[in-house]
């Protein structure tokens, strides 16, 4: 049928967006960056039993310039928050954030003067992982969810004005398939506030 019948074996046609998303989803390099207990489970995810390299994410990059994914693995203190924000700002687009564990998601047991109640107060988060700390399997599941999300992204979503539009009326975004992650697909409601001009 169609063009593919005419092409020799070994050649496929696809959308450029799908190709790009496919490559992004299969080599998401995380930032080498651990905060607290969850970092130990993050390291365990990288070791032989759980083997994060099955996802193409074993290459933890120490430089934010080379990383695609920030796994916020632990509680975020008031002193650390500016550092995390700067690291996030230094990462190149496209970039994603996983809030690993309840501390990074919502402050967890540390509802006190020292800890910020969820890293989403300072940077946008794509996937939240519950647990204290989450098991390595939970982190791998979060990576799965992230891949789903990466697979749905379009070039248009990355455009600034689209992001800004999404920020204006987040409640207007229709959920895709009812999944809470689908509801946020690609549209960064809490994206960095873009300065005028």
């Amino acid at each position: 049928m169609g063009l593919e019948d005419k092409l020799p074996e070994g050649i496929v046609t696809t959308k450029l967006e799908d190709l790009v998303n496919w490559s992004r989803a299969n080599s998401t390099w995380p930032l080498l960056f651990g905060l607290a207990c969850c970092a130990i489970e993050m390291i365990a995810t990288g070791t032989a039993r759980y083997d994060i390299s099955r996802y193409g994410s074993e290459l933890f990059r120490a430089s934010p310039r080379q990383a695609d994914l920030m796994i916020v693995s632990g509680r975020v203190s008031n002193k650390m928050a500016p550092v995390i924000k700067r690291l996030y700002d230094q990462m190149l687009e496209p970039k994603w954030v996983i809030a690993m564990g309840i501390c990074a998601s919502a402050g967890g047991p540390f509802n006190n003067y020292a800890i910020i109640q969820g890293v989403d107060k300072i940077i946008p988060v794509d996937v939240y992982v519950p647990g204290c700390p989450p098991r390595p399997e939970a982190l791998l599941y979060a990576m799965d969810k992230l891949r789903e999300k990466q697979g749905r992204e379009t070039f248009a979503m990355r455009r600034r004005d689209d992001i800004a539009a999404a920020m204006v009326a987040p409640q207007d975004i229709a959920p895709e398939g009812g999944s809470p992650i689908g509801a946020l697909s690609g549209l960064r409601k809490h994206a960095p506030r873009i300065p005028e001009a």
Partner: protein
Amino acid sequence: MLNVSPRRREYETLPSLNNPAIPARAPLPQGETDDTKRIVERFGDAVIAAGLHNDQQMVYIRPDQLVDLANFLKTEEKLAYEALVDVSSVDCSKLPAGETIDARFHTVYQLRSYTRKRHLTVVCPADGGSQPVVPSLAPVFEGAVWPEREVYDLMGVGFSGHPDLRRILMPENWPNHPLRKDMPLGGEPVPFTLTWEDPEFETLGKQVLPAESVAPVLPPGMNRERMIVNMGPHHPSTHGVLRLVVELDGEDVIHVDPDLGYLHSGFEKTGENKRYKDFVYYTDRMDYLSAMNNNLGYVLAVEKLLGVEIPERAQVIRVIMSELQRIASHLFWLSTHVLDISGTGMSLLMYATRERERILDLFEMVAGARLTISYIRIGGVWKDLPPAFLSHLQDLVDLLPGKFDEYETMLTAGPLWQERLEGIGRLSREEAINMGLTGPMLRGSGVDWDLRRDMPYSGYENYDFDVPVSTDGDCYGRYIIRMEEMRQSVRILKQAMANLPDGLYRTDNRKVSLPPRAELDVSMEALIHHFKLMTEGLQVPPGMAYHGIEASKGELGFYVYSDGSAVPYRLHVRGPSFNNLYAISKMCRGHMLSDIVANIGSIDIVLGEVDR
């Protein structure tokens, strides 16, 4: 300015119901010992009280004689308290006025004699009301420098004569001293009520940083004419969010100044707002690589105040867990240390974590969690060992020694490994004691000291094991010690398995541990105990206690001050990593930049415990 919630959450503090005797002050020490007799003889009226409190030697001293007392304790041969283990403080403003002491702040010092195997607590009521000042002990014990900075930072007690008194954990421009009793706990008053519309978020994440146009302030003693390198808090080899400011001459390190507090989580303040039993879960998250040891240290301090007997079986289970955790922690230290140093040692990371996973499997078997276990509880352990546990443990115990040999063949005689570690980070015996180092850091410098053997707890006196000591004082010596410690832990495990008695796995003292579920159906008394424990919590008699255990990284101490209610009035943690990390500056000086990484690995820090 920073928005710390001004609302004080009274519902978090649960005073005991309608008991007029609460809060109460800790009673003054009674009786006398040889040591306190000597001190009273020498200092006379300057000693406010001396004697025993909770079987602990304790001296209350007036601040003007504090430094003299420290000198006397250290130099007098018959006393020989060589090391200052810990400095903490108490804000007494919410306690009833004392009969003999009226100061708002007390500083509390824990001193240790390694030669005589004695422990002494010194309490010093501070002059100056709300702006207290106490003479610094840093000129006598170098190990007081950081703990005093911590007390200054969190409690606002000034130390006169301190060489470098500035904040250590909180950001430089933090508006208050959080551990003072008139400071609120902070956080969200009701979880999940703050929204993006809240004005707080306009500044969040930027509030504690100076404007970018302002040049960063250098730590005192650093020279801007040389190269200053910032290392961390985001750095692959700092084992967490440690920041080091390094002054370099070429590639030689002139000066290192650690900047801590990037993971400061307010454990102590949180603990003072939680009931005793609820803080066990927090201890897991301090040194997250040895959660069982943290549990054990905390419950032992509380049990000391309660004066409760722990059944034999629970003691042995605690020893098993504590030793398994020591091995797990050392395995993780080994894998990260090798990774830091060789860069290509990824294979050892894989091997060592493979064995560590086996230990985590055992933890999962007993408690359902891998890392934050909370298995050791006040009064015993959470549940009895499952039936299959011992056979799995036996498999592991048979497996481990061979694996340790395997690691050692990769490292011990390797020329690269020796080249990177030998002679690096050398500390003499005197330096190690004076800086208040503990654990493998202390033993690495030739001090034959292990709390398990020399001040036994949890029945460690019943086990036969050796304490490895190295006189080299360098990174290689500490490596050898930790490898040998793992072997000795296996030896203890074997003995514990062979001698595991039957019986209760937690105390049947119903004032401390809940009655079993079946008893509630048949016994009215059990129902009452259950209700009282659940609504009021443990009733801990007024007093203070310090208990130190030999955790995998050194002496882990908990200082608890009880006012008689179900919530600790003051809870202080002496983290071994915090005190050991102080040595980094001395260890790195004169070596190359790349040796800093070897030294950090050799100290074996966990930032959750350094910053608390």
